[in-house]
């Protein structure tokens, strides 16, 4: 492990903690670094109130990679913006609590949030070109990110910036500091974004579709880099994506979101091997697998709902093949399925955890049809 002391020397106590975490595998620590409880974020538009995030609970433990999966409009991005307190009008966090590192930041002042953002909590976005300032050099932007949070001289900050560019696998860091974003390729820009997010050694890194705009070979490079940084620094990562392959490759735990709600949560293996919610099952069965070619893919009927479109019962009931009357009537409570795995579905309410016989035909249809 080559983590330059010169990067963390100003917070060497943290390095010790990070290293300790990484060695323990991170996830073993029970205390969550970030906890979201009953989060509701609503947009007040001319057409009425749109509950983009509607009662979301989850937590992230130090050093783990949590995946948030869902399709467009499911509220995964608004969830991450809410955590960073970056939701702006007409959107508003109307309910719930966000506890970061023991501190309730739901109503923290803007001043306090500015201290947290980019320091203890950082974020990277899908389109690296729009998140980098085109008229400033990479060096200026990295140095700014460091000096906002740390009292260092410009020279020291530049040295740190160069060191980080090297750590994220960019060649000739000294020259790169002087170049502008448009001179870099998409993959390089995303590496710069990662370096910028990591310079202050955040406890949580939120990555919102970090590789969606990149080619597969570049995606692989970036994902490997993020995993390496997670292992070596112990920074917890919240990875927001629609790509199930990326989730399987990267995450320790997964939450599946649908129409503003979390419908299933569990360790990555449980989610992929024993998906419990019909939506998760359908989603998994509908992606082509390179290793075995099916004659025909399963497809979930119907369309992805717009936020706030479904107001009664389980949000998935209009598209669910197993929908019952009670699904239309009320939102299912969490059904515990063992070891951190739970799903919001009435099918697991019945005896033996799942409707007799139905569980089988469930998985069966999903794969074979």
């Amino acid at each position, binding site marked *: 492990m080559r983590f330059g002391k010169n990067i963390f020397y100003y917070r060497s106590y943290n390095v010790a903690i990070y290293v300790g975490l990484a060695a323990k595998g991170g996830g073993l620590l029970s205390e969550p670094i970030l906890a979201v409880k009953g989060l509701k974020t609503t947009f007040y538009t001319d057409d009425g109130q749109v509950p983009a995030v509607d009662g979301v609970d989850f937590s992230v433990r130090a050093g783990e990679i949590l995946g948030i999966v869902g399709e467009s409009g499911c509220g995964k991005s608004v969830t991450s913006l809410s955590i960073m307190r970056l939701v702006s009008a007409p959107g508003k966090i109307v309910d719930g609590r966000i506890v970061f590192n023991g501190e309730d930041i739901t109503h923290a002042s803007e001043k306090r949030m500015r201290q947290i953002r980019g320091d203890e909590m950082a974020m990277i976005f899908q389109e690296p070109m729009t998140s980098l300032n085109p008229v400033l050099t990479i060096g200026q932007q990295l140095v700014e990110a460091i000096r906002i949070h740390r009292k260092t001289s410009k020279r020291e900050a530049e040295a740190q910036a160069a060191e980080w560019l090297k750590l994220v696998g960019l060649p000739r860091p000294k020259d790169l500091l002087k170049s502008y974003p448009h001179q870099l390729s998409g993959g390089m820009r995303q590496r710069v974004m990662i370096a910028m997010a990591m310079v202050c050694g955040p406890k949580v890194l939120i990555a919102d579709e970090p590789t969606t705009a990149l080619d597969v070979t570049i995606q692989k490079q970036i994902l490997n880099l993020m995993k390496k940084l997670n292992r070596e620094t112990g920074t917890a990562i919240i990875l927001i994506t629609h790509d199930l392959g990326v989730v399987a490759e990267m995450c320790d735990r997964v939450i599946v979101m649908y129409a503003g709600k979390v419908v299933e949560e569990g360790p990555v293996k449980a989610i992929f091997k024993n998906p419990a919610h019909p939506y998760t099952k359908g989603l998994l069965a509908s992606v082509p697998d*390179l290793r075995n070619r099916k004659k025909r893919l399963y497809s979930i009927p119907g369309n992805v709902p717009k936020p706030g479109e479904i107001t009664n019962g389980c949000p998935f009931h209009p598209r669910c093949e197993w929908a019952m009357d009670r699904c239309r009537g009320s939102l299912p409570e969490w059904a515990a399925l063992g070891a951190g795995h739970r799903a919001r579905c009435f099918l697991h309410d019945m005896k033996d955890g799942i409707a007799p016989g139905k569980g089988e035909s469930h998985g069966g249809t999903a794969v074979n049809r």
Partner: protein
Amino acid sequence: MAEPLLTVEGLKKYYPIEGGVWRKTIGYVKAVDGVSFEVFKGETFGLVGESGCGKSTTGRALMRLIEPTEGRVVFAGQDITALDKRMLRKLRKDIQMIFQDPFASLNPRQTVGQIIEEPMIVHKIGTKAERKKRVRELLEVVGLSSAYADRYPHQFSGGQRQRIGIARALAVDPKLIIADEPISALDVSIQSQVLNLLQDLQEAFGLTFLFIAHDLSAVHHFADRVGVMYLGRLVEVAESDRLYASPKHPYTKALLASVPVPDPDYKSEGEVLQGDVPNPADPPSGCAFHPRCPFATDHCRRVRPELKTVEEEHRVACHLYA
């Protein structure tokens, strides 16, 4: 094997780079640089590659939506590249296109009915009443309600719009459909709906597809044969299962190893490809892949490999298989 419906021979599309005070041509971006393949009747030929590899340009150049610089395209026995404008328009009835962005490819001021009817008007098919009837049929065929004919595109979701785009392509009974990234702008659960629809239509109408995509899993699923492109050239062409089971070209291998597999137990083999796709205005000498290739030799740096048959129905452009 059957007669090919479409034969592409040495297709090239160069874009001039202008510079200096007099805007003289100082070089070329070789977007497509000598691509040859054929598509047989009733099959799906997949064209796959990363951004900037020229796969979309190939799709457009062979339809002459952009004029190719060089090369021959023979469609159903007719040389497209030699046709004049009038003949070309006639021929385009048989080749239709489905585009990536379902938001940009439908005119927002036309109703869905008008959008689907337009190709029939252009090609003078049927009377007004017949066309209206056909529009309603087509809507049903692509899984929409025929009552939607009077609505506007903005009233539909991405998946539904893509269905409208497909209905428009089907309106003139084409023989070949060029689908350029038809599912990449759609949600995961909608992608499989559209792929299944295309599959159903192929079976029902005996359609031939040229399926252009960057998503290797989708191409593997949908295509019968696949061509892999890198920097304007085809590097490997083979039957789909064979290509994925035993890829030959180092680039194809790396590409396949990079695809994230939705299985947490799966450990991908193979090296991660280093570096970026080179600038097509200044491509590397010899084999365009050599700067990223782990097996590159001096020979690769100097001589450009040709696409050669190495096994039955399996062509590779690589010196390793010479």
